[in-house]
C-alpha cells in the first residue's frame, strides 16, 4: 500500500517535473524560468485553489467538521512553532530559532496543492474548508515567532520600532494570503455559476501550470542544497523529523475528530509543511538578525522535497490504515 502510494506519487507529472528541475541544477544546465514567471504562477495557483475552495464551500460541503477543522488548524499552527522553538534554542541564537519555528508553524501552499493533485489522481474527495484552513495557518506562526524573539531576545529585531500593527498587517495581508482568501470569498459568492465560467482557466490549466511551477521549485530547491553542506546533519534530520512529528499529531487528531481521508491528508500536509515565502518576507525586515541561510534551506531544500516526494504517499498510506 505505502509502496503503491509512493509509486503513484512518483509517476505524477508534477513530481517528475520537480525532479527535472533538480536534475537541471545537478547537470549545471542553464535552464531558468525567467524572472516574474514563477511569481505569476504562484499567484495563479493560489487564485485557482482559493476559488475552487470557495465554490466547494458554497455547496455547503464539509458538514459538522468545518469549524472543528479550522480550529485545529489554527491550534496546530501555534503548537508546532512552540515545539520547534524550545527544541532549537540550544542550537541556534534566539532570532534564528524563532524564524525556524515560524517556518515550520506556517505552511507551504505548493505542498498543499500537490496533495490535492495527489488526491485527485486517487479520486479521493476533500472539503473546500481545508483551503480556508490553509489561509488561516499561514500567519499565526509568524506572529508567534516574532513574539518569541521579542520575549527572549528583546534587543534583537527592530527594537520594537516596527509596531505590532505593521507586523500583523504584513502577516495577514501579504500578497499570497490575500489572493487566497479573496479568491475563496469570490468562489463562495459566485458558486457553481462562477465555476462554470472560469473552469477552463482555474481547472483546465491547473495541473499543467503546477508542473511548470514545480519545475521551478526543483531549480530553486536544488540551488539551496549547497547551503546545507556547511551545516552538518542537523538541519536535514530536523527538516524531516519535525514534519513527521507534526504529521503524527495531525493524523492522531484527524482520527479523533473522525475526519474523512481526504481532509485528514490535507490537514496533515499543512501541519507537516514549512513556509519559504511568507516567513522570509516578514522576518528579513522585522528580525534581520535571524539567519536566512539557515531557515530557508531547511524549508526549501529539505522539508519541501521530502514532503513532495515521500511525505505525501507516506502520510496517505498511514491515514488509509487508520481511517476506514
Amino acid at each position, binding site marked *: 500500500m505505502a509502496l503503491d502510494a509512493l509509486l503513484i506519487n512518483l509517476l505524477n507529472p508534477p513530481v517528475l517535473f520537480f525532479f527535472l528541475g533538480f536534475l537541471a541544477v545537478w547537470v549545471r544546465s542553464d535552464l531558468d524560468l525567467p*524572472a516574474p514567471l514563477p*511569481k505569476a504562477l504562484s499567484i495563479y495557483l493560489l487564485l485557482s485553489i482559493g476559488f475552487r475552495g470557495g465554490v466547494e464551500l458554497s455547496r455547503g460541503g464539509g458538514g459538522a467538521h468545518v469549524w472543528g477543522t479550522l480550529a485545529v488548524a489554527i491550534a496546530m499552527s501555534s503548537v508546532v512553532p512552540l515545539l520547534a522553538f524550545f527544541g532549537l534554542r540550544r542550537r541556534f541564537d534566539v532570532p534564528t530559532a524563532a524564524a525556524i519555528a515560524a517556518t515550520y508553524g506556517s505552511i507551504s501552499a505548493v505542498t498543499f496543492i500537490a496533495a490535492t493533485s495527489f488526491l485527485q489522481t486517487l479520486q479521493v474527495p476533500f472539503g473546500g474548508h481545508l483551503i480556508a484552513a490553509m489561509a488561516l495557518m499561514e500567519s499565526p506562526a509568524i506572529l508567534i515567532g516574532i513574539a518569541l524573539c521579542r520575549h527572549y531576545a528583546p534587543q534583537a529585531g527592530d527594537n520594537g520600532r516596527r509596531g505590532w500593527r505593521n507586523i500583523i498587517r504584513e502577516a495577514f495581508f501579504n500578497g499570497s494570503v490575500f489572493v487566497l482568501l479573496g479568491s475563496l470569498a469570490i468562489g463562495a459568492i459566485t458558486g457553481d455559476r462562477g465555476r462554470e465560467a472560469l473552469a477552463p482557466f482555474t481547472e483546465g490549466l491547473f495541473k499543467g501550470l503546477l508542473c511548470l511551477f514545480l519545475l521551478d521549485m526543483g531549480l*530553486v530547491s536544488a540551488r539551496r542544497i549547497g547551503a546545507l553542506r556547511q551545516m552538518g546533519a542537523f538541519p536535514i534530520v530536523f527538516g524531516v523529523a519535525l514534519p513527521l512529528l507534526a504529521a503524527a499529531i495531525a493524523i492522531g487528531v484527524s482520527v479523533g475528530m473522525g475526519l474523512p481521508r481526504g481532509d485528514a491528508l490535507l490537514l496533515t500536509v499543512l501541519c507537516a509543511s514549512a513556509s519559504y*515565502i511568507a516567513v*522570509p518576507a516578514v522576518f*528579513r*525586515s522585522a528580525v*534581520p538578525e535571524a539567519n*536566512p541561510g539557515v531557515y530557508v534551506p531547511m524549508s526549501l531544500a529539505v522539508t519541501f522535497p521530502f514532503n513532495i516526494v515521500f511525505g505525501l504517499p507516506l502520510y496517505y498510506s498511514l491515514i488509509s490504515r487508520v481511517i476506514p
Partner: protein
Amino acid sequence: MENVIRIEIVTDGLEMREVIALLGEIGVSGYTLIPRVEGRGGRGWQGGDQLTDAFANSAVMTACDPVTAERIVSRIRPLLKRHGGICLLSEARMVKH
C-alpha cells in the same frame, strides 16, 4: 551646471521603502531608483529567489548639495548597520531643467 554630491545607496529591496521615506523627510529634490539589482557582500548572495522579493537588493541614486548629503549619511548609517548594504558618495556636476 551645479556642483552636487552624487549619493548611491544599495540595500535590501524590502528596506528601500524606508530609505525613500528617509530621503523624503530630509527633503531631497529627487532620486532615481533601480528596483531590482543583485549583489554580494558580508551577508552573502542577494540574487533574488524568484519566490519572494526578500533576497534581492535595490539601488537608489540622488544628487544633492553637500549639507543634505551629510544628513543622508548620518541617517542612513544605522539602517545599513541593521540591514546591510553600502552608500557611496562622489562629486559631480548636475544639469537640471
